[in-house]
């Protein structure tokens, strides 16, 4: 909190300056975080409050800074995939596949249509999982605890799908540079069909408990609003920006993985408040589901990886029998494949917005520099402005509705 020299003025985090006389009562400072139950993840806000009204907020982040970017400079390309898992861990596959696409762009590899469609299915499942958790947390923070459990059961089904596909539930490490290491297997097909059959009803049931409930609407409408201009200035992307009414979506703007083939709408909100963010996410879940249906029903036949033996690990059987494959295998694992020198920026529409990878390669076994565009980190700085003037309850649901993922925030 910056005090003016006259000691009589108080500067709010939205730039407004108030005279102390206009504030009745005493000003208190409370620590909102690092271990507050509403800070899912760890970050601290020191709030200056007048009663319950928030006057100012000072943020501290970096509590789980793990030095991703430094780590990525020391690991070969294929070992960076597990690291990207832990960025936005609510939707790891998007991070994985986005990274693979970045490297493919650097290498100039084009993948078969089937890989694109498989990626779309996996990524949209991840988006559903991500939005489900965010929206259920909004429900929990407004006090409807049950709304955490219904979507989580659906999430569990998505976990099962991942498990069938790659062998892990949350930190998936799914796919490889150049495609996937495995095709969809019969159990995956069966489980995906089952998911597609049951999901809409379960989703709408849960949605119906909140969407038009007046208590929920009153709580969320007008909570933590941000205008389109301010959101843009703060570099918002993804659902939070769309809630403010701007239909920016990387999937449409710079299509990747054949997103141009699919028909889907971009839901937008009006005021950029918590209700808008909730509704935009809910609609995006429906749209993602539509995309999955389209992709799955039109899934092309063919190979599930590109033919790039220098970068795509050969099949195990060939490694044992085929000298050439064995050499490629060693080269890839040791990180001795030729990587072009260059730099490339690729971005995908992550759970929280534009998830970008700025990769500089000097031809070595690991990136010279890898910078992640982490949407959370960029938009979380707008939080003080969003909550100034509202009360603690609003601050809580605003925080959960902008879906700040600590892993992505602190890198």
């Amino acid at each position, binding site marked *: 909190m910056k005090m003016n020299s006259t000691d009589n003025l108080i500067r709010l985090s939205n730039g407004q300056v108030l005279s102390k006389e206009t504030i009745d009562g005493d000003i208190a400072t409370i620590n909102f975080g690092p271990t507050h139950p509403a800070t899912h993840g760890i970050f601290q806000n020191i709030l200056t409050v007048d009663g*319950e009204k928030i006057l100012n907020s000072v943020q501290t982040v970096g509590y789980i800074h793990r030095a991703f970017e430094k780590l990525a400079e020391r690991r070969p390309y294929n070992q960076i995939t597990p690291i990207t898992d832990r960025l936005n861990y609510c939707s790891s596959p998007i991070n994985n596949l986005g990274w693979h696409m970045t490297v493919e762009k650097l290498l100039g590899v084009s993948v078969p249509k089937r890989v694109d469609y498989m990626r779309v299915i996996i990524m949209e499942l991840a988006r559903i999982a991500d939005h489900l958790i965010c929206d259920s947390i909004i429900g929990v923070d407004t006090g409807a605890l049950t709304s955490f459990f219904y979507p989580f*059961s659906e999430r569990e089904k998505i976990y099962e799908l991942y498990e069938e596909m790659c062998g892990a539930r949350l930190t998936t490490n799914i796919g490889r540079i150049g495609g996937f290491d495995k095709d969809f297997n019969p159990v995956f097909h069966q489980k995906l069909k089952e998911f597609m059959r049951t999901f809409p009803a379960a989703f709408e049931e849960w949605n119906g408990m909140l969407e038009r409930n007046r208590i929920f609407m009153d709580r969320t409408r007008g909570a933590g609003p941000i205008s389109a201009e301010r959101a843009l200035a703060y570099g918002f992307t993804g659902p939070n920006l769309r809630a403010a009414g701007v239909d920016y979506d990387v999937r449409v703007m710079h299509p990747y993985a054949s997103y141009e083939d699919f028909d889907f709408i971009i839901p937008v909100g009006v005021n950029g408040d918590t209700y808008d963010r909730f509704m935009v996410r809910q609609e995006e879940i429906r749209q993602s589901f539509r995309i999955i249906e389209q992709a799955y029903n039109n899934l092309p036949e063919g190979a599930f990886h590109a033919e790039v033996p220098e970068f795509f690990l050969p099949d195990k059987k060939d490694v044992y029998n085929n000298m050439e494959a064995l050499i490629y295998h060693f080269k890839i694992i040791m990180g001795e494949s030729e990587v072009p020198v260059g730099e490339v920026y690729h971005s995908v529409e992550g759970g929280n917005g534009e998830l970008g990878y700025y990769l500089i390669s000097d031809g070595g076994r690991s990136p010279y520099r890898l910078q992640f565009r982490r949407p959370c980190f960029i938009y979380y700085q707008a939080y003080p402005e969003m909550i100034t003037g509202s009360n603690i309850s609003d601050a809580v649901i605003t925080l959960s509705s902008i879906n700040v993922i600590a892993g992505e925030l602190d890198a």
Partner: protein
Amino acid sequence: METFYWMDKLVLVVLLFLISLGIAAYQTYFERKLAAWIQDRVGPDRAGPFGILQPIADGVKMFMKEDFTPMNADRWLFIIGPGIAMFTSLITSAIIPWGPNLHLFGREISLQVAEINIGILFAFGIISIGVYGIMIGGWASNNKYSLFGAIRASSQMISYELAMGISAITIIMISGSLDLRAIVESQHGLNWNIWYQPVAFIVFFICALAETNRAPFDLPECENELIGGYHTEYSSMKLGLFLFSEYVAMFVSSAIMAILFFGGYNFPGMDALKDNPNLLAIIGVAVFFAKIFLLIFVFMWIRWTIPRFRFDQLMHLGWKVLIPIALVNMLITGFVVAFYHHWF
């Protein structure tokens, strides 16, 4: 006669004390089970068969937990807080008529500890003291979140007491008495007040939710915002008392609601048992408890369904919605009652 009277009362008091605590304890169990069922889970099932010993385990654990008083806290007030909360919750049950009189040992035994003719006023009086427990506890903790909880609790209770009182007045008008026994007796058979006063019931019910700090009005302790609210700094059995008092309060307020609106221990077809007062009393008590449990179930059911209000919306609801509704309802009732009695 006098000694017998006191003995009766003593037995009843002890019994009530145990029943209240027992019910409160098993309410926690039931609440956890119900929450689990609503959420497609099983709930506690490892402490004893079906987890039936869960409340006992919790109780023992809390007794043995380190009793912690934060630095800079007001030591005495810190202790008094939970005490008041528990005491006020328990004492209200003294005025509740639990059933028709028993005929035992040639005497008529009343199933009501204190037969005071202003029972309902007593209840309101005690309830308004109840908030002091939370307030003192929250203030004494010397923690900002607790203080927020305490402030929220006190303003919430005061606001909702008004609407609660006004909606209860309609019942007093209909039955013409402040005595809870008389109010129950006036609802003989199925002649319950709920049929005449549905609006008053809804208002009263909402206020009861607020008075017992239950969702959607659990703002004083809502953990997503205030961590633990007024009991953030409490540990061990002091916390236990706070948690328990909430459940006791829920039990007692369900009982009061059952008396005011659902005819207490009255049930349809009770005239058939006129000749057997003891059987009538036993069934009456059972019916009364069934009504209480049903109301408790609704309390819990609501808690696990809907989101909570924001503080200003809660105030708005209390002052601008419930109080006007209760007032209008009271006026209409007044006119109807006056008309019925040919007062003009």
